[in-house]
């Protein structure tokens, strides 16, 4: 994957992460996988483990069907396929924040079938009040106990420093996802996601160094301002950057996203509270909403904010096939967006992540339609 030189280290991370993580594991590093951004990575890190996001890889699913049905999202199928082919041998376990049914089931299937030492699902509260915060504190304590039994070491000082580090990482990433003066971001969509996803598979201290090096290279000669119809994309994970290319070829310019592999993961950058544990809790009860844990009505104003901030003129739902939380929100969000004058297109992706001719034509039609609306 050849990229501008300021991005090459991130692109290399993505292509070389498996071998690098495997080598680190051989040298004694303890990596823990997680599926979803509701997983408190700061806590895992403070316990002495390196959180690594489990990503699938677009491709053919075969072995995974011996454990799961075909009607679950491509991300989970591809991740399991990779695990069964030995692609995650560097992980010492998997930890998950409870979100959708598939991630919940997959965490348990993973525990049954992929050898490891530390497995945990955080049953996060759905509401924010003193009682759920108190409950969450006990839940985090229970995890710490489990992590210590698996060889981890925890202290509040370590948590403080993990929180600080992840907050700086998110703040840095956020500066790439939005312009300092409003309008379009400083990197184009593919570049933003290369950077963000490199962060999922890189130890955070190393990733922070990379981000700081990137910051020193600003301004970038990103092809962001080459024109195209500005659009917002919304969905869960996008694992194939070819999708961004296809959208740009269709005449769209992705100025913002509501993806859990992108912008959604960054907010809030930090929590607040009297101590590190309170700060951690505050962040996780205030996460930028995911459809598996909130109402479409809660998401709509945030989508409109993004649209207004970035000048997006349309919204493309880029959905993983069979993704219930997103599919279930689409009718209401579409109704609300259309009422607000925002054109909407729904694109469903399978595990190949190939944007075939029919999808390309639909995208082109959508972009032309938006373009025509201004005339």
């Amino acid at each position, binding site marked *: 994957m050849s990229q501008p030189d300021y991005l090459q280290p991130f692109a290399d991370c993505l292509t070389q992460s498996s071998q690098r993580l495997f080598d680190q594991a051989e040298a004694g590093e303890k990596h823990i996988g997680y599926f979803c951004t509701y997983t408190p990575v700061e806590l895992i890190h403070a316990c002495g483990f390196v959180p690594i996001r489990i990503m699938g890889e677009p491709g053919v699913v075969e072995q995974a069907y011996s454990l799961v*049905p075909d009607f679950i999202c491509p991300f989970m199928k591809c991740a399991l396929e990779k695990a069964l082919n030995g692609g995650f041998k560097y992980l010492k376990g998997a930890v998950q924040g409870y979100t959708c049914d598939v991630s919940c*089931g997959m965490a*348990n299937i993973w525990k049954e079938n992929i050898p490891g030492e530390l497995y945990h699902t955080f*049953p996060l509260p759905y509401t924010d009040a003193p009682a759920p915060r108190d409950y969450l504190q006990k839940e985090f304590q229970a995890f710490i106990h489990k992590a210590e039994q698996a060889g981890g070491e925890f202290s509040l000082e370590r948590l403080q420093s993990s929180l600080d580090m992840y907050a700086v990482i998110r703040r840095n990433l956020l500066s790439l996802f939005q312009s300092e003066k409003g309008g379009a971001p400083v990197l184009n969509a593919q570049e933003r996601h290369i950077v963000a996803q490199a962060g999922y598979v890189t130890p955070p201290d190393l990733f922070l160094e990379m981000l700081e090096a990137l910051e020193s290279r600003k301004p970038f000669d990103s092809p962001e301002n080459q024109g195209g119809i500005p659009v917002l994309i919304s969905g869960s994970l996008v694992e194939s950057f070819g999708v961004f290319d296809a959208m740009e070829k269709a005449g769209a310019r992705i100025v913002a996203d509501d993806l859990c592999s992108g912008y959604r993961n960054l907010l809030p950058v930090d929590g607040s509270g009297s101590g590190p544990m309170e700060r951690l809790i505050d962040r996780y009860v205030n996460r930028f909403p995911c459809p598996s844990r909130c109402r479409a*009505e809660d998401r709509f104003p945030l989508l409109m904010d993004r649209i207004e901030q970035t000048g997006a003129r349309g919204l493309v739902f880029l959905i993983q096939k069979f993704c219930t*939380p997103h599919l279930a929100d689409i009718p209401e969000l579409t109704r609300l967006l259309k009422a607000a004058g925002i054109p909407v297109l729904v694109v469903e992706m399978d595990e190949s992540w190939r944007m075939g001719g029919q999808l390309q034509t639909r995208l082109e039609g959508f972009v032309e339609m938006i373009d025509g609306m201004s005339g």
Partner: protein
Amino acid sequence: MEKSKKSTKRLAAAKELNKAVGEYYLECAAAKEQGKPVGWMPPMNGAIELFYAMDLQPVFPENWSPVCAAFGLTPKNFEVSEGMGYSRDLCGYLRNIVGYVNGPMTDPAIPLGGLPAPDLLISPGGGCVPVMKIFHALERRFPEAKVFKADLPQVALEEIAPHHVDYAIQEMQRLIDFLEKATGRKLDQDRLREVVVLSDQACALWDEIMSFRRTIPAPFSAAEIGIMFVMVTRQGTRQAIDFLIKARDEIKERAESGTGVIEEEKLRLFWDNIPLWYNMGLFNYFEKANAVVVAETYSAAWSIRLDPADPIKALAMKSLMSYPLVSCVSIEKRKEMVLKACREYAIDGVVFHRNKSCVPISLGQMDIKKALEEELGIPSVIFDADHMDARNFSTAQFQVRIDAFLEMLAEKKSQV
């Protein structure tokens, strides 16, 4: 073989069931007319007992879906929800109930009088995503209803710790406060204890009824599993107890007299996942090979005993345990439960319904299948279908797979 077929029933309790279903829905309609607050809620949680203790009317949209399937209302409901933009890949319960409330609900010709509009919505945080999304859609459809935004930790049974229980108890108390404020009715603790005693008695009776199916030949099959209707809708009431006692007496008599479902029961089957509500006749299909479905996962969710000494805690525990017990939240416990049932019910083979409308139950089936083979040597078969949407069920695939499976089981048994 037909895509939709009612089951052949042998129990006199089946007639009682029709009566019980009719009475329940009439009671729901009457409650509305009499000004009794009506609350819609998901099943399998402790809110039901609270409602009966406070003389409120609980309504279960999920349970309405099998009724729609039985009366052939589902295609129309699907047409409405799919027209609204709901994908065919979504759970059939979701598409059915969203379609119903946005379409035929106002039709006066709806069987059983339909569902009365809710005054209260117990909107879950936790449980499966489709049920959560059903309630979000109901909040939109009934904006005048008062909404309780529930919150329940989703924990595997083996991981439930005191802080989960404490939080579930606090949530139960929050629900009580909401109901008291919303309805102006005070919860009487003595009345709640009575309701919890009745609910626990219903669970004990349910366990007893299920235990008679260990008898060979089994006194009734999954074709009659509709009798669990009272466990879904009437937990904590005298009506449930009366219905279950009658059913228990009849089933006990059949078990003691050796009266089976069919003349010569040769194979005993276990069924995993929700039945095909539009084709309960499927359970009779096995009978042509002298096979009877004598146990199933779904009916186990109603066996959670309640301790009346601490009613609120008992209801909190029920809420915590019911959904994980039958879903992918607790694959390990579910596996244990299926294996235990297979030993106790002398199961020869297991039928896995890989259900496009229920991901949480379909996930984990392959691990259970593997354990059945490795630990008990029990063969199993998987077929693809959908508990609500007949368009996702191929009779040809079902027949080919099941016929071959039954043949293999018969052959295996003849060699013993």
